[in-house]
């Protein structure tokens, strides 16, 4: 199978502080990969580079020409008073006057992420799991073929975690969406992911999730 991402000799330094050095890995199209590593090892920095929000100190990365990238960031500013409904939030990246095509696309993503029944619930009043699914639905509206999720399960209870992971697996199986899932939850990655990237001490390892045994130091 062909690759969707190739990273070559990637390095990142902030002043004299080296975050990582000489990272090399490839992701196959349609793969399901966990980016693992303890907090503070540079997982989000790596993602920010891949998303073009940071420039690496050295090295390069190349996405496949036909890549359509979706990204679900780690933090959002959605407080309890946030007014928009789930449906309005998911459709934020669309014109205010929506064509029937856009409306259909929003409906499809709401159904895909099991949010259609509660589409009129305010985001501020939605549960953590519902919010995460809404973030995912918003990213899916662009019809991506690769999606990067940064610590999407970090603040969720076990049931909501499983629900989100099953949804991600379903998207991968049904729509062949390549998934790069950033987490420090090894057991969750074991349960749902095929491959791993393990970032620690500035180096990266790549392999099948079933082979991943290393404990965090």
């Amino acid at each position, binding site marked *: 199978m062909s690759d969707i991402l190739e990273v070559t000799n990637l390095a990142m330094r902030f002043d004299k502080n080296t975050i990582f050095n000489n990272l090399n890995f490839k992701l196959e199209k349609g793969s399901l990969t966990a980016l693992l590593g303890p907090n503070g090892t540079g997982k989000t920095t790596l993602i920010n580079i891949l998303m073009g929000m940071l420039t690496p100190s050295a090295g390069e990365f190349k996405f496949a020409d036909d890549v359509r990238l979706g*990204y679900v*960031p780690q*933090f959002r500013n959605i407080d309890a008073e946030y007014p*928009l409904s789930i449906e*309005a939030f998911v459709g*934020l990246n669309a014109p*205010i006057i929506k064509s029937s095509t856009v409306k259909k696309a929003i409906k499809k993503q709401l159904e895909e992420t099991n949010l259609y029944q509660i589409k009129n619930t305010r985001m501020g009043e939605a549960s953590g799991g519902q919010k995460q699914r809404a*973030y995912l639905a918003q990213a899916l509206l*662009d019809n991506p073929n690769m999606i990067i999720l940064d610590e999407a399960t970090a603040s969720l209870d076990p049931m909501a975690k499983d629900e989100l992971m099953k949804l991600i697996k379903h998207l991968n199986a049904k729509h062949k969406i390549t998934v790069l899932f950033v987490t420090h939850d090894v057991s969750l990655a074991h349960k749902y992911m095929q491959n791993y990237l393990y970032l620690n001490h500035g180096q990266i390892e790549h392999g099948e999730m079933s082979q991943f045994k290393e404990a965090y130091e």
Partner: protein
Amino acid sequence: MFAYGFMRNAFLASTFIAITCGTVGVYVVARNFSFLAHTLSEIGFAGAAFAVWLGIGPLWGMLLFTLLGSISVGELSLHSEQKESSISAISALFTGLGVLFLAISGANSNYATNILFGSIIGVDHQGVIQLIVLSVIVLLMIFSIQRPLNFDSFDHIGALAHGVKTGAISVIFLITLAMSVSIGAQIVGSLLVFILLTLPPATANYLGKTIPSMIAWSVFFALIGVWLGLYLGYITNLPVTFFIAVIEVAIYLVTYFTHIIKHKL
């Protein structure tokens, strides 16, 4: 009441002010810019005083100062760790300048009161046309950037992740905010223009669940405030701005407590 030319002018001007401030206000509240709107009001006062000193129309001085002020305050609040302190400092400086310009221009205290608290007899036919043209420009600017503005205002992090040029959107929005402050101050005064930019949209936050519905509620409450305020001002001969403030605060409080009670039951 409409037999008087000044009342017709005041109604027409306030209708456009309410539509503009009600619309822009939704984004002011979404972006947590309420304090900035308040500061711009004070900067507007200094601008108007500056214009009086120069001998030009107060609207132009206000536009000049609020445009310069909104960009510099916006930059400061984006890049400074001490956002509130830096806004306070600028606010203090401009209020001081306003007092200075008024003093050296030799304008009487009545004139200062008009700038600060607004005046319904201060807007002539030409003034109304200026206000309408500026209002339409603001609304067109908002409409032309509505997609990235909506995304950035209601989900800043999501917008960044989608590659929206949030910096450029912020600058354009600050320009529309400065213009709205200058427009709104013509009737309600520079001291209280932030009422129309913050209270109707804050009320709309509890009632609307989509951006168009929030804008509709916000404009509706702003219109009720200015129309009823003008009417009550006319029949009682008390300041219009007083009525607008009381009406907007009352609508906000009723909606707020209804929301609280609903969510506790």
